[in-house]
């Protein structure tokens, strides 16, 4: 099923209008509105700004490396070994994604504060006069970001392992031991997936605002935010954002290049062909390692939030004061996820219908959107939509929904496009023989076949939107609050109990939706019939 040329053009126009227009117009205005020499001058950063950008790159690279060191062994243990509790560990690693990174930062900022329980314990134990651990540092931000984002690495690594041809490993095992086979054969074959995942985490970390702000670590996006929100210097903020945009665009381009022709999410492929390694005596150590990762990334954050929230009355009070914000956040995330999923189907079909060269360019364009830092996207949206004729949009919560879509749609496109790539084309060819209209074939045949991809896209869109902070901070209309914004505002007042209760409600809502979607997926799946 292919889209006609005019259909493809329409899809790309809508996509570009939603995703690229705000930032594109912003940059063009900033450059065109100044003398050519001053625009070029603005691109040359001061020594301190270079140092900040360098520090930001190092921080993101550190988070990415640590996420790989956590995520790849976890994926190998889950997918290639007889790990005890394998079914549990294969699902549980996704739970940290339900905890927004700034909640990780709040929890670790509390636990590892100078006078926090961990430092106090270590000081008593080792007889130290000062706190040995400082989470309010670039190193602290690296650890927090890695714990929040390692599931992306695990997800893509597992996806690569599922599509691996086991015969190469079998051949290697005839001559070499398990360790050398894994390190010399298995890992090199999934290098593109690991590289792509590392770049994903790198981009997430370099554009992150929430973790750096909570942990009070001075990073480049914070500098842009200061220029715009505190110093009211819009042009400096825009020009300052260009080098960051170049770095992130390069990372995304590399990532798309490394994954060309490969699937990001393996929905069904490769089952039954996996080569399993026996762990033998390492059973316990392997399970304990996976358990420790889940302990640090899920149980400690959730446990610390439960501890901070205190009695049940806190939840009642938080619900009482924030019910409207909870409903608004939920409604906005659902609408954004539906729009993202719909747009992703259209873009995926346009990608699928494009000619070879056009498809390569379009694939890059569909993913480069994520390179736009939220702070740049937010400023661009203010400039684009804050005018009398679009006041109805800018003054309502729909502007936030638009921000979510613009920021996160590359992810949902990946989920749907992967699903489309894994379809058996003969099914659609057979449907075409019925000479029914394309719309009917799409509705009756294509969408049911894409159900896993659609549910995955909806879930990704919902989760990312529910936790979004960077764009929302800039575009949210006065008088409207989302849960992340409320958490951000309450943090300032030291209202730890309410922050913890709201954080737990946010996680619970996402977990319930995940379970519901998982159930729907199984119910709609072929096995239940």
């Amino acid at each position, binding site marked *: 099923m292919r889209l006609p040329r005019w259909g493809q053009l329409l899809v790309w126009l809508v996509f570009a209008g939603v995703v690229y227009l705000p930032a594109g117009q912003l940059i063009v205005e900033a450059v065109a509105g100044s003398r050519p020499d001053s625009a070029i001058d603005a691109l040359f950063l001061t020594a301190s700004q270079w140092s900040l950008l360098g520090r930001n790159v190092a921080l993101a690279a550190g988070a990415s490396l640590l996420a790989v060191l956590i995520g790849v062994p976890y994926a190998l243990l889950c997918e290639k070994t007889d790990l005890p509790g394998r079914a549990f560990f294969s699902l549980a690693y996704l739970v940290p994604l339900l905890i927004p990174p700034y909640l990780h930062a709040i929890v670790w900022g509390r636990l590892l504060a100078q006078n926090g329980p961990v430092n106090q314990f270590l000081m008593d134990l080792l007889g130290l006069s000062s706190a040995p651990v400082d989470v309010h540092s670039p190193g602290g931000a690296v650890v927090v970001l890695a714990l929040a984002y390692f599931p992306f690495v695990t997800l893509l690594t597992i996806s690569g392992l599922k599509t691996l041809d086991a015969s190469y490993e079998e051949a290697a095992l005839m001559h070499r031991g398990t360790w050398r086979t894994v390190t010399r054969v298995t890992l090199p074959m999934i290098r593109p997936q690991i590289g792509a995942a590392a770049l994903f985490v790198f981009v997430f970390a370099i554009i992150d605002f929430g973790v750096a702000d909570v942990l009070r670590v*001075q990073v480049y996006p914070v500098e842009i935010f*200061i220029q715009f929100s505190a110093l009211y210097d819009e042009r400096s903020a825009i020009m300052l954002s260009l080098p960051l945009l170049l770095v992130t665009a390069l990372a995304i381009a590399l990532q798309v290049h490394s994954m060309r022709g490969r699937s990001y999410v393996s929905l069904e492929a490769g089952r039954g062909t996996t080569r399993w390694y026996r762990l033998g005596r390492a059973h316990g150590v392997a399970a304990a390692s996976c358990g420790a990762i889940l302990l640090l990334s899920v149980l400690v954050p959730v446990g610390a939030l439960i501890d901070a929230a205190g009695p049940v009355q806190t939840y009642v009070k938080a619900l009482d004061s924030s019910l409207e914000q909870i409903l608004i956040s939920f409604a906005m995330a*659902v609408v954004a996820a539906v729009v993202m999923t719909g747009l992703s189907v259209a873009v995926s079909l346009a990608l699928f219908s494009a000619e070879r060269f056009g498809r390569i360019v379009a694939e890059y364009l569909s993913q480069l959107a994520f390179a736009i830092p939220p702070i740049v996207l937010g400023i661009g949206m203010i400039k684009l939509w804050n005018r009398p004729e679009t006041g109805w949009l800018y003054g309502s919560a729909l502007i936030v929904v638009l921000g979510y879509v613009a920021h996160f749609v590359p992810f949902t496109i990946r989920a749907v496009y992967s699903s489309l790539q894994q379809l058996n084309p003969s099914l659609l060819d057979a449907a075409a023989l019925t000479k029914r209209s394309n719309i009917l074939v799409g509705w009756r045949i294509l969408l049911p076949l894409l159900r896993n991809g659609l549910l995955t896209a909806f879930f990704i869109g919902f989760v990312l939107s529910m936790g979004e902070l960077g764009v929302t901070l800039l575009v949210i209309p006065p008088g409207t*609050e989302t849960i992340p914004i409320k958490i951000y*505002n309450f943090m300032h007042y*030291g209202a730890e109990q309410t922050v913890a209760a709201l954080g737990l409600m946010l996680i619970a809502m996402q977990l319930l939706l995940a379970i519901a979607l998982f159930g729907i997926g199984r119910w709609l799946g072929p096995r239940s019939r």
Partner: protein
Amino acid sequence: MVQRHLAKLTVPFLFLLLGPHPVGAQDERGEHIYVTWTLFEPDKCAAVWLIKRHIDPDAQFVFFERDESPPPGIGLDIPEAQFRRYHNRCTYETLFDHHRLVDERLAYIGRIMHDIEVNVWERKAMEETPRVEHEVMQLFSEDDLQGNVDACLEYFDALYSRL
């Protein structure tokens, strides 16, 4: 059938997204009584002065500990209040905007408060911000809350007249 149910679900969603969402309207229960935590800092100090001198001369301030429930009154600079610090505005600015005050000198003080309260990073936008912050922080005493109010009124009266 499915489409009809979806349409029914869509209506409340659109109402939520397009409708106005006034925050904390329930706060305005007691006239002239503003309830706030005992903790003082520059933004609250300036907000107290703004209320007393330019919004509600009959205003009274009732203080309570942060772990207690707020007494009846208009919440001021507490998490549940309408007039509080937001991610992009300080308490002083929310009062200034809400009452649509038009005064260049008041707006200038608002920019200093924004610089202290919202621009929490090292670099400040205005030259006098560190000085004002330092001077205001010297005014407060833990035991004498009414004395703190009086000191705030005196300090910002002087600052306002200097501008």
